[in-house]
């Protein structure tokens, strides 16, 4: 057993040396110290005992005694006192180190939040400001002290400019739906200056889904909006400047071809009509570009009204009847009973007009065009199919792209802009619907458009789209 102890002791000591060589007391030093101390104590006891003149045997026993004690005493001290003590110290040190790392990290994050240029506010579940960063002070003009403790988003601070409906939706989203609210808001700085901001407010939830805090981030977009406005104005101006000379050509050619300034020879008449056609293409292109720019700048206006899609379809067929008749085409109409839907009639008209016009244009003489409007419980489904040239399968994926026209279309009719379907797709999707098609070259195409029966969402834009015949 002694042998076992010493083996273990050796192992421990080695282990101890390796691990704790950096710690306060070297184990070897302690061992020697203890050994010496115990030996001396024993020796002193012996000296004391000397007074009583111990026998030699007794002296030997005492020495043996002290050695055994030392051999047993040290390990016990080591295992029960020294080692646990050192481990405790080590734990304390580790904890301290961790806390220090956490503190450094927290300091980093705090600095990141505090000094970022963007505006960051942290509030309690009722919107009372708990922490604001420098960005807030910079953007709103209010100081930290003026904000903390007050409710964010009110007239007292930099908010309160939006209508009731806005704030209602805002609180519902973050407090009851517990979702992130992203939107544009108009606020007012301390000095009275109004500005536009992009805000995102996120609820921070506990493990049991209770709202702990709200984190609100604001970005000043006044400059962006100013640039956008400038862009839109340039396009408006450009289109106006372009349309004026185009109108002049249109009206002068009209006078020429109607004989108001003298009769034209047959050739002159033909040439004048050719000028008119080219001019009309330019007008259509300018208006399409205007539409594209309005869609891309997001300035499209959607004004939903109770509309009967079937009436729009019928009215459009009426408009196209002369074209259909001159091409000796057949038109089949199939309408199911459909309720009036809350949609923008102008936009709906543009959608059907474009697809129908394509069907007529890209179908040869004596072809058939079918228009079907069905009630599919959640959506209205408009299907327009033709027996025309179809779209080559290799080019089908590009059909909705801006300015794209399939090769066969370009051959048959040089006049399209390639913008029609791009615009239609954008309108359909912005109105909450879907558009897709099937087509086989030289067999025909079928276009499908769905429009939700619950209608379109009203969209505050600044522009209507141009109607292109």
């Amino acid at each position, binding site marked *: 057993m002694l042998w076992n102890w010493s083996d273990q002791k050796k192992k421990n000591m080695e282990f101890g040396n390796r691990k704790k060589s950096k710690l306060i007391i070297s184990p070897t030093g302690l061992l020697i110290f203890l050994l010496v101390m115990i030996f001396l104590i024993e020796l002193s006891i012996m000296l004391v005992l000397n007074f009583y003149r111990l026998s030699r045997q007794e002296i030997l026993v005492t020495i043996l005694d002290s050695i055994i004690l030392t051999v047993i005493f040290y390990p016990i001290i080591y295992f029960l006192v020294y080692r646990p003590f050192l481990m405790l110290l080590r734990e304390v040190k580790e904890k301290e180190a961790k806390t220090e790392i956490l503190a450094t990290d927290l300091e980093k994050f705090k600095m990141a939040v505090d000094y970022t240029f963007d505006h960051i506010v942290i509030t309690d579940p009722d919107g009372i400001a708990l922490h604001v960063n420098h960005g807030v002070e910079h953007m709103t003009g209010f100081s930290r002290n003026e904000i903390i403790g007050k409710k964010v988003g009110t007239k007292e601070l930099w908010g309160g400019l939006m209508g009731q409906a806005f704030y209602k939706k805002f609180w519902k989203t973050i407090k009851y739906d517990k979702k992130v609210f992203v939107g544009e808001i108009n606020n007012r700085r301390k000095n009275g200056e109004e500005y536009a901001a992009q805000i995102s407010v996120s609820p921070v939830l506990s493990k049991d889904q209770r709202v702990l805090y709200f984190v609100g981030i604001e970005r000043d977009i006044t400059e962006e909006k100013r640039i956008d406005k400038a862009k839109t104005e340039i396009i*408006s101006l450009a*289109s*106006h400047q372009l*349309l*004026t*000379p*185009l*109108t*002049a050509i*249109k*009206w*002068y050619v*009209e*006078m020429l071809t*109607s004989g*108001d*300034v003298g009769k034209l020879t047959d050739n002159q008449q033909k040439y004048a009509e050719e000028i008119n056609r080219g001019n009309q293409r330019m*007008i259509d292109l*300018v*208006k399409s570009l205007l539409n594209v720019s309005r869609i891309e700048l997001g300035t499209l*206006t959607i004004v939903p009204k109770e509309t009967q899609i079937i009436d729009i379809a019928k009215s459009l067929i009426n408009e196209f009847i002369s074209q259909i008749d001159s091409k000796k085409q057949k038109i089949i109409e199939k309408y199911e009973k459909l309720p009036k839907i809350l949609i923008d009639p102008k936009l709906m008209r543009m959608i059907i007009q474009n697809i129908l016009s394509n069907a007529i244009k890209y179908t040869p003489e004596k072809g058939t065009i079918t228009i079907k409007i069905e009630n599919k419980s959640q959506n209205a489904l408009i299907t327009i199919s033709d027996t025309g040239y179809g779209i080559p399968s290799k080019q089908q994926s590009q059909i909705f792209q801006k300015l794209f026209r399939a090769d066969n279309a370009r051959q048959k009719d040089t006049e399209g802009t390639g913008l029609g379907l791009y615009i239609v797709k954008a309108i359909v999707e912005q109105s909450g619907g879907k558009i897709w098609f099937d087509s086989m070259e030289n067999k025909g195409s079928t276009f499908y458009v769905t429009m939700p029966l619950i209608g379109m969402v009203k969209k505050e834009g*600044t*522009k*209507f789209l*141009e*109607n292109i*015949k």
Partner: protein
Amino acid sequence: MELKDKKLLVVEDEQPLIDIICKKLALLGFKTLCVGSVKDAIKFLKENPTIDGIWLDHCLLGKENGLEFVHAVKNHEVWKKIPIFVVSNTASPDKVKTYLELGVEKYYTKADYRLDDILKDIKIVLGKGELNE
């Protein structure tokens, strides 16, 4: 419809368009006068309050635009009865709405209409008829 001697005021700032509009109107028997700014138009109305109709563009010479002109006309005891046809290339939704609310007969986007079509409507209104939308 007796159009002879019906007088029309054309308020338009683009010279080529003035020429063609007045030419067409004259061919149909109207008597026309063209001015290029709101100031001139008001001056003309003061001297000739009994004109039968006004063809109005929105963008004009000078500071004032067509909208301000319509305001002035519709607020005048005598002038407010004169039918106004707004023919312009700038068609922002609010502008169109405002013009119609102020009581103009119709708003035409120039590039969309043939002269014949606009004049057909003018003939109807001046013949004391009503335009159907």
